[in-house]
């Protein structure tokens, strides 16, 4: 699966949110997009999800243009997108219920993703009984169970406290390693982007455009300790400078 954005621009009325973005996401990649607010990060993700159409330019998956949203591009929002009347397992099962699958096959798949995301113990709980971190795990499991070509994460840990956020970062890295899925994640947290990404793209603001691309030369097998290494800190600092330059120009 290769996701390609070619000269993608998006206007809201008179305001140009994204200006001529070119970007390619390769299979098995974990691509993080960082940028200050107003850099059009979320717009970029909505366009890839197919929830909006670009004003000009083209977005393709394996050469086929995107015409609308679909389960091949699973989306996780920052918060508040769980079905509050459905239990954890029925939230995760939503996408599979729409397919012609027998119950045993469906349950088998739901069970695997509940275990992978550490939700087996709360499978019959309603979302409001869960912590913020657990809720985001449900949203991730619900997207992944549909076996998307690419998992789209829109500031998925932005509303969590620092400790929970780090737990979730470890979890999403583990899931990425386990499942071999491709991830496109948008965040304003540079540390998070450098820790998780195989590559980091920096967007500049007003209008949003690609300012820089950085390959992350860290080992694939990372733990939280890597955040204190000189190599990590140097990379983080240089990306932070790029984000800041992107704001003030």
């Amino acid at each position, binding site marked *: 699966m290769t996701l390609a954005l070619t000269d993608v621009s998006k206007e809201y009325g008179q305001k140009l949110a994204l200006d001529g973005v070119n970007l390619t996401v390769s299979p098995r990649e974990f691509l993080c997009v960082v940028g200050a607010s107003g850099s059009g990060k979320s717009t970029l993700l909505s366009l890839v999800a*197919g*929830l909006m159409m670009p004003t000009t330019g083209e977005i393709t998956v394996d050469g086929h243009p995107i015409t609308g949203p679909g389960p091949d591009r699973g989306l996780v929002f920052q918060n508040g*997108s769980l079905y509050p*009347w459905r239990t954890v397992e029925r939230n995760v099962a*939503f996408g599979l219920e729409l*397919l012609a699958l027998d119950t045993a096959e469906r349950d088998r798949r739901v069970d695997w993703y509940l275990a992978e995301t550490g939700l087996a113990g709360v499978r019959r709980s309603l979302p409001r009984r869960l912590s913020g971190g657990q809720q985001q795990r449900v949203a991730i499991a619900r997207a992944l169970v549909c076996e998307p070509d690419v998992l789209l994460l829109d500031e998925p840990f932005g509303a969590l406290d620092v400790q929970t956020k780090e737990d979730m970062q470890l979890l999403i890295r583990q899931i990425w390693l386990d499942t071999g899925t491709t991830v496109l994640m948008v965040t304003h947290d540079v540390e998070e982007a450098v820790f998780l990404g195989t590559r980091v793209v920096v967007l500049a603001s007003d209008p949003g455009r690609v300012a820089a691309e950085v390959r992350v030369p860290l080992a694939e097998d990372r733990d939280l300790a890597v955040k204190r290494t000189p190599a990590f800190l140097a990379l983080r600092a240089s990306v932070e400078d790029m984000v800041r330059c992107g704001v003030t120009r």
Partner: protein
Amino acid sequence: MRTALADRTPDVRTTWPPLPRRTRPRRTALTIRTPISRRATTILTVLSLAVPFSAWVVLSASGAVPATFLPPPGAVVSAGWETARSGELAVDVWTTTRRVLQGFGLAVLVSVPLGILMGAFQAGQAAFEPLIGLLRYLPASAFIPLLIIWLGLGEPSKIAILFIGTVFFNTLMTADVVRGVPRPLIDVSYTLGARRGEVLRKVVVPHSLPGIIDAVRVNAAAAWNFVVVAELVNSTAGLGYRIVRAQRFLQTDKIFAVLVVIGVIGVTIDVALRLVRARVGRWAA
């Protein structure tokens, strides 16, 4: 953006007098949203019923108000017992209830789908909002003469009044509830592969159901009002009819008895719908 320390705002605050301080009010039982004791709650609840009831007893017993105007509670009970025993009351209750079920039932059947249409689609909103927004301000009781001309004096005109009185409000309230379905919930459903109909059925409707029941509960009370109004004009049975008839013979005690029955049925409907709402909306609590 200010970055350099040199541009700092000069500190002239040293020349200001200190801000005046206000004394802090004590926390009392009437502080906004402050909890009160269980005992205080019980006392207030009992008083809210006991005070009007005692006033009634005292006023009617003292003879300050003639019994023709304000019958004593005892007379009301025996008048109620009388109508109940004769079988008259059962017929009236059933006749009125049937009218509510038909008129308001029809209104719910029309307004809920229409409200979902208006809440879910901008086209539905644009097409129906102006007319319904206007019609709801026309008082249903003002339609009575017109409906009698159109539909005659029988059941259809009575059911039509109930329908007109409730359908517009219930539509607009349902539309509001449906518009309250969070956008991310709808978007994420599309990304999980749901089609339009599936999003409506599996996301919009379940999310709106508790709110729709709330709207029905509010409008059921209105329906119960309209049915009595409808029955004041040319009926041969029903609780409203019974009141008009009792008035003709100056049977104030009977009027009171029927009013009590109407109140009890109203509360019963309300409690029943509350229970349904609590069950359906458990996830929202």
